[in-house]
């Protein structure tokens, strides 16, 4: 270590790397630590979409803020991250879902995030692989899919180019807030590094470093096909998504099919809590594929070349945890993004940076404040 370190960011996933770059750009001397390499954890296991989700007003605020930042980022980084501006088709299978799709279109359009309703005929013309008999869909124009590990790697490289420090293959075993003016991380090899601030963006590792922060694993099973270029133009998501209908064993499934830049189809998604490991679950993968085939029948004749599972770092109320640790001065958090970490990474980073610098963030930070899990302090 040479010279002063203002802030140490723990975790080089998409959220941690984005935070590190924002902080370094704001003039703080930043070190980024990861037990492995950038983007190799949850960031590499997930689907990688940039989507406007609107299950709550604050979720949409954070998504739209971040999507605006991503738009700039993609313009500034042509050719990086396998960005496909495919848009999303939220597919409704019945009249009830169609009503919800209409509400989604209204909410997004009201925020200038362009969405249009499609009747069954328009839907079939736009995406002939979809089955007959669907009720309709809402097409969200500005959504994209990306390959997140490459973006995390790029962000880490940018941090270094900006004068920040990279410390990879170094596992942090504990964090210490030695005084109001100083914090410290202890590495596996016993080495200690001090800084004024710590940002803990360690995904599921947050539970080990800060057991009082309620981040828990929510498992997802995924499958990817061989290359079938041109067969699918849009990301397809069932209007079931986010409805959280669960089976007896706590498995929740909603079809999400992404056309990747390679012509492959990436197929999710499932959610299951209380799972101990990332072993692929044949029951969950089977349910995921069944839900996808129900929308896209031709999938039944396509080759699946790989299946895997990952753990989303979830929070109890489904919102990420961004801001100051309520009881340990100097420690800051950017965690618990569940399945939206890629979409919301850039906004999370800007929000955290503004809060750390005592500036007014562009959106209301209260829904994300870590203090919400601490009751009355």
């Amino acid at each position, binding site marked *: 270590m040479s010279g002063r370190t203002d802030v140490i960011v723990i975790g080089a996933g998409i959220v941690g790397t984005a935070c590190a770059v924002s902080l370094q750009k704001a003039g703080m001397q930043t070190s980024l630590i990861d037990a492995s390499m950038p983007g190799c954890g949850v960031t590499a296991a997930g689907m990688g979409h940039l989507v406007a989700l609107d299950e709550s007003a604050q979720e949409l605020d954070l998504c739209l803020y971040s999507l605006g930042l991503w738009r700039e980022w993609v313009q500034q980084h042509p050719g990086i991250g396998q960005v496909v501006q495919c848009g999303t088709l939220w597919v409704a299978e019945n009249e009830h879902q169609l009503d919800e799709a209409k509400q989604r279109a209204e909410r997004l359009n009201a925020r200038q995030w362009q969405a249009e309703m499609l009747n069954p005929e328009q839907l079939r013309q736009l995406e002939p692989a979809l089955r007959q008999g669907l009720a309709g869909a809402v097409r969200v124009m500005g959504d994209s899919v990306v390959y997140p590990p490459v973006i995390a790697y790029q962000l880490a490289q940018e941090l270094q180019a900006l004068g920040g420090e990279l410390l990879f293959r170094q596992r942090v075993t504990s964090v210490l807030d030695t005084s109001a003016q100083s914090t410290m991380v202890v590495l596996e090899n016993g080495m200690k590094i001090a800084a004024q601030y710590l940002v803990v963006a360690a995904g599921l590792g947050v539970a080990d470093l800060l057991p009082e922060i309620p981040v828990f694993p929510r498992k997802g099973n995924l499958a990817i096909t*061989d*290359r*079938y270029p041109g067969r699918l133009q849009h990301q397809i998501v069932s209007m079931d998504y986010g409805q959280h209908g669960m089976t007896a064993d706590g498995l929740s499934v909603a079809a999400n099919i992404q056309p990747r830049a*390679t012509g492959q189809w990436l197929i999710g998604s499932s959610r299951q809590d209380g799972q101990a490991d990332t072993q692929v679950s044949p029951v969950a993968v089977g349910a995921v594929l069944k839900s996808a085939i129900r929308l896209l029948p031709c999938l039944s*004749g*396509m*080759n699946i070349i790989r299946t895997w599972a990952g753990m989303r770092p979830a929070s109890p109320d489904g919102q990420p945890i961004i801001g100051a640790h309520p009881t340990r001065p100097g420690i800051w958090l950017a965690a618990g993004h569940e399945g939206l970490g890629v979409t919301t990474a850039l906004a999370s980073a800007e929000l955290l940076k503004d809060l750390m610098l005592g500036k007014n963030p562009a959106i209301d930070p209260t829904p994300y404040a870590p203090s919400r899990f601490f009751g009355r302090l």
Partner: protein
Amino acid sequence: MSSKKFLSLQKIQICLNGKWLPADENMNVAAWLLSQETLQTRLSVTGMPRFAVCGMGVCQECRISINGQAHQLACQTKCQPGMVIETGEIR
């Protein structure tokens, strides 16, 4: 009935890259391509010609487009009348 069909070696026509050619019904597609002196089932992502390696359905090298369905295994597929096979443009 099915074993009789399996043994059939009737002369049939198969369309290979737009050209109709004679083949024996139920002959292995990879073997038939070999008999046509065509050592290509597809082009790789980088444009290289590919052909069967293991011949027993494991290596996935002999993926081929049959009747518009990509990524069939030539070594696990039998020649059928009217089959349309595409192996990519470069020969």
